[in-house]
């Protein structure tokens, strides 16, 4: 993470935050608004962070993964489905149902990743096409099962959608969460906390362990890695699977942490934005996390502005329109990809199938 990139991230976040502070300052004190923005930013950046980590494991090993979106969507659905099954059919209480849901979501991500690995590593299908297959299959399967199980007349739940048991309760980090006002930031739900921990775990694994060294070798120069006895195919499979499980956890965010319901297409491009965060962070976990925070801040702007709708001055009326404010993350993504923030260097063998 170079300083210039860090500066840009800080600048964008400061601009987005001050916009909300300036609009809402007559109603709430700036400290309260900033804390609320920070808490929202960290929370909504969760799926982006996990998606970006998925991308890092895959691409550091030399496999491009644009199927993250589909992996998250599939995981969101099956995790949610599992929690409902546990709750309504086996009468588990909230926590065990939701925990089973999270586990199923992670496994679903892994299963989709296995398909991606098989297609792109074993069958050497073009990796972009393989990722697209994952995305289309995930949309089809979740849409089909969602309607088949919940809305058909002869469906499992007989046409009435059973309410999901609920979402993961938030965890107050002791001491930190007791700080007045600022404490809110440390009152987060489990998947968010897990994502933060995983950022640093991934950093350690990638840069300070033998596993990480081998992964990077396989992604930079697979033939050299093969020559010194590293099993290229096995390393790629393992990393894509780890990545898929992380994307699965990111998918669990949508239906088991954020809201207790599923909508078709609910991931809404987060998997692709996560890829942009990964690129902006130059394929490093901490950089990708900071980049994910920028997108989180753009989304937090949209969410927090809703509290101050009537305070928006008439010359900034466009900020009242959710469709206009909602453009921010997508335009940010495109700006980042143009390279105005400096060149990024992908792993040398990224996207190229290994032929022995």
């Amino acid at each position, binding site marked *: 993470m170079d300083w210039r990139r860090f500066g840009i991230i800080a600048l964008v976040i400061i601009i987005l935050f001050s916009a909300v502070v300036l609009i809402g300052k007559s109603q709430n004190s700036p400290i309260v608004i900033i804390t609320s923005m920070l808490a929202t930013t960290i929370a909504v950046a969760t799926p982006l962070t996990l998606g970006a980590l998925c991308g890092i494991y895959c691409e550091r090993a030399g496999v491009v993964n644009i199927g993250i979106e589909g992996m998250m969507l599939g995981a969101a659905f099956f995790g949610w489905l599992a929690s409902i099954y546990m709750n309504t059919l086996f009468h588990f209480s909230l926590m065990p149902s939701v925990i089973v849901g999270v586990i199923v979501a992670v496994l679903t991500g892994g299963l989709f990743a296995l398909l991606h690995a098989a297609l792109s590593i074993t069958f050497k299908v073009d990796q972009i096409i393989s990722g697209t297959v994952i995305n289309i299959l995930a949309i*089809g399967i979740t849409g089909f099962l969602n*309607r088949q199980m919940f*809305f058909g007349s002869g469906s499992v739940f007989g046409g009435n959608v059973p309410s999901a048991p609920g979402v993961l309760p938030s965890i107050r980090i002791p001491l930190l969460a007791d700080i007045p006002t600022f404490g809110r930031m440390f009152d987060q739900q489990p998947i968010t906390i897990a994502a933060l921990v995983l950022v640093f775990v991934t950093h350690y694994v990638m840069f300070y362990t033998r596993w990480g060294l081998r992964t990077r070798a396989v992604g930079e120069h697979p033939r050299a890695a093969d020559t010194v006895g590293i099993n290229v195919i096995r390393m790629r499979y393992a990393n894509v699977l780890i990545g898929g499980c992380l994307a699965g956890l990111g998918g669990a965010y949508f239906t088991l942490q954020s809201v207790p319901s599923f909508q078709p297409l609910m991931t809404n491009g987060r998997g692709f934005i996560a890829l942009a965060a990964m690129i902006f962070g130059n394929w490093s976990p901490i950089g990708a996390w900071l980049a994910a925070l920028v997108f989180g801040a753009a989304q937090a702007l949209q969410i927090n502005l809703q509290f101050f709708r009537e305070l928006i001055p008439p010359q900034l009326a466009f900020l009242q329109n959710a469709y206009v404010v909602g453009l921010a993350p997508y335009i940010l993504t495109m700006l980042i*990809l143009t390279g105005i923030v400096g060149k990024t260097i*992908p792993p*040398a063998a990224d996207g190229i199938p290994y032929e022995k």
Partner: protein
Amino acid sequence: MRQPTEPFEASPSSLRRFLHAALDAMLVPLLAVLTAILVGGIIITLVGGNPFNAYRGLFGGAFGSLKALSETAVWATPYIFAGLAVAVAFKGGLFNIGAEGQLAFGAVAAAWVGYALPGLLTTDLPAFIHVPLAIGAGMLAGAIWGAIPGALKAYTGGHEVINTIMMNYIALNITSFLLNGPMRDPDPLNLSARTPEIAASAQFQPPFEGLRFHWGFVLALVVAVIIWWLVWKTTIGFEIRTTGANPDAAKYAGINVKRTIVLSMALSGMLAGMAGAIEVTALNYRHELGFSVGYGFDSIAIALLGKNHPLGVVLAAILFAAMRNGATRMQFLTQIPIDIISVIQGLILLFVAADVIVRYIYRVRAREDRVVLTRGWGG
């Protein structure tokens, strides 16, 4: 994946060779479709349905009557345009996932020219000017929306896959904004996000009473032939194909690679925009939010199934249209949700992309050349 053989290259005397080449090129896609339908049948059985009834309903709904045939053609029209759009980009080595957004903007532009232009010019336009003007506006809007990610790719290296997807969301947001705000149908009875109806002079009247079949389908077939001619028989087409096959070689051969990339994407976007414009001028007579959901990904599957050849794209588009159209009747008869079609289409794409699996199952010999799109992110 194999390059499509070029059936039209055959000399007129060798009809047999043409048929042989065409069949050869279609073998793997056909087997992929067959396999996907078999797996789809297994899924239908697993969720408690009867696959034979389901597929009978599907077939009847797609081809069983004159009305069904007409509806299949109506569905096929945007699929042919959008499939050609993706195929042209593929030929230029570019992956256009943005057909959805380009199509939406084409529809918005055509609708605007259709309902607002006579008022702005304070005069009525004759149909032979107004209809082409509306379609042209849609093509232009799509071309611009496609050229932007093309230019970003050519001049900054920003990968078109992410950029076209981002532009889909941007187009969706802007369209939602326009159709809920400035362009919303002011009719007091209107409750949905849609534009006013376009002027009668901008409406492409359907040829048959009582059927929704429209000239857009014929136009799509004509455009498919034009695209075949453009890509395989002209210098521009040669430059597009060369750039797609090997940008470095193209550069050494004196081709302006950057310009060709922008051109391929603009051409691709133009075709997608045309799909939207035709839906407005020939079918719906207005643009309504949410009508284009899913065309983007479907068109990728169509292009890949059709092996990026216009003839293949037309056949694949008709197949997909038949499935979409027949699905309603299938759902009515068997209660299997329409969404099973998306699963089957995903499976078709899977088996076309991983033709190794299909070749292994059916013991079809492979010829080693595959399409290359991924070379990292280009940085």
